[in-house]
């Protein structure tokens, strides 16, 4: 990709690749794609200055549909790849994206440590509470009573993972929730997340209309959070105690300094590189 001499005024559609998405008709991820392109246009970012890293799953196909640098990583490993990229190329705007299974199960440990490490990037998790690409198994965020999968005919019977709590407890510097039913509102959240220094986590409600058709009704359940974002993690934690999973908007805007080691020209041994990541 050649670097533009000047930063032209791009419209949202200019950030889309020519590839047609293969998501199921009605999938929430279409709106998330729209929200991401609107956010990039609003920030007037040159496509060659943006990189999107994803894991595996339906939503992780996102980089293919964008005309920015993309990397379709292995399952659950979007965050370590994105971390390495941002640290080695700090001038890039780095986004990571994926689904709830990819991010909270296979990549669950990476999620906690990415929050804790606080590298300046934005992680968008499209949560539909199911593994869609592998045809409908319960994921970490699935309700314990969901019994539609033959693998869990009595439901999972275990508590659902609560990503906002984990993000806050692990040290994410920006935490918000958006919904694919409101792509313009989601674009605003993504803009704010990218602008905020440090690790930003966007919990994106994005229905799976094929294996969780009841999620089409989510658009009637979502509602704006009644209060503005807080900079106090203790206040954010208290608010999460009454969160109904459908509050939209920014919950927390922290002020921790992002982790960005000094760049070194070259290393002789991998251990020298690894030493820079030790916290």
């Amino acid at each position, binding site marked *: 990709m050649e670097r533009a001499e000047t930063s032209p005024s791009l419209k*949202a*559609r200019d950030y889309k690749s020519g590839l*047609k*998405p*293969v*998501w*199921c*008709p*009605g999938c929430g991820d*279409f709106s998330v794609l*729209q929200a991401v392109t*609107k956010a990039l246009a*609003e920030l007037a970012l040159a496509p060659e200055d943006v990189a999107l890293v994803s894991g595996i799953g339906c939503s992780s196909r996102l980089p293919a549909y964008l005309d920015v640098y993309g990397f379709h990583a292995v399952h659950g490993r979007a965050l370590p790849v994105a971390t390495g990229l941002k640290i080695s190329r700090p001038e890039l705007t780095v986004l990571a994206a994926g689904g709830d299974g990819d991010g909270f199960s296979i990549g669950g440990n990476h999620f906690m440590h990415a929050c804790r490490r606080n590298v300046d990037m934005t992680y968008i998790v499209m949560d539909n509470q199911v593994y869609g690409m*592998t*045809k*409908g*198994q319960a994921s970490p965020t699935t309700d314990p009573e969901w019994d*539609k*999968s*033959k*693998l869990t005919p009595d439901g999972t019977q275990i508590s659902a993972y609560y990503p906002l709590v984990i993000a806050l407890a692990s040290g994410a510097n920006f935490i918000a929730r958006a919904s694919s039913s*409101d*792509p*313009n*509102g989601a*674009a*605003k959240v993504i803009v704010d997340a990218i602008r905020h220094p440090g690790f930003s986590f966007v919990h994106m409600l994005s229905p799976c*209309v*094929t*294996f969780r058709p009841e999620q*089409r009704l989510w*658009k009637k359940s979502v509602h704006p959070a009644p209060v503005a974002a807080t900079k106090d993690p203790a206040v954010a934690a208290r608010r999460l105690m009454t969160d109904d999973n459908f509050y939209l908007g920014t919950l927390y805007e922290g002020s921790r300094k992002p982790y960005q080691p000094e760049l070194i020209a070259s290393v002789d041994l991998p251990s020298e590189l690894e030493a820079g990541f030790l916290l």
Partner: protein
Amino acid sequence: MSAILIASVEELFAHALTMLSDAGECYEQLADQMEIANNPEVSKIFRWLAEKQQQRTRYIEALAGDAQLPHISPWDHHWEHGLNPQAPDTDVTHYMMTPYHALAMAAAAERSAAAYFKQLTDADAQADLCRLAAEFSATAADFAVVLEQRLSEQPAPEQDWDKDHDPPVVLE
């Protein structure tokens, strides 16, 4: 509805252009979805709708001429619940949807756009703004009539139109 906050002709042009171009992109995307889902009949309708919206976008761009239109962030437009009144409600999008669903979806969106512009003509706004809003409202209403006419030529979908005899099933 907060549309009465539109205070100038330039702002109205900006809103109308976003409404049409977003709706056009949405129809284009729906056409692609139906093409991928091997539903060519509905894909063709969505493609036609996208072209119509693009034609109207070009018309309004010409009408605006050299006017300096304000930049409005996607979330700052003055429409209800932050949702573009001209964008189709994609709730019924389904790989087995019929032309009836597609046309009904588009007709509802045009009626919604007509109502949106109509309220500007009712407001105590500038005369040229009211006149332009009335034109936009009439155009949307006229197109809704065209779509309703086409809709009336379509058979209503069967009750179990979305029943798939080879459905996607959860993995055993």
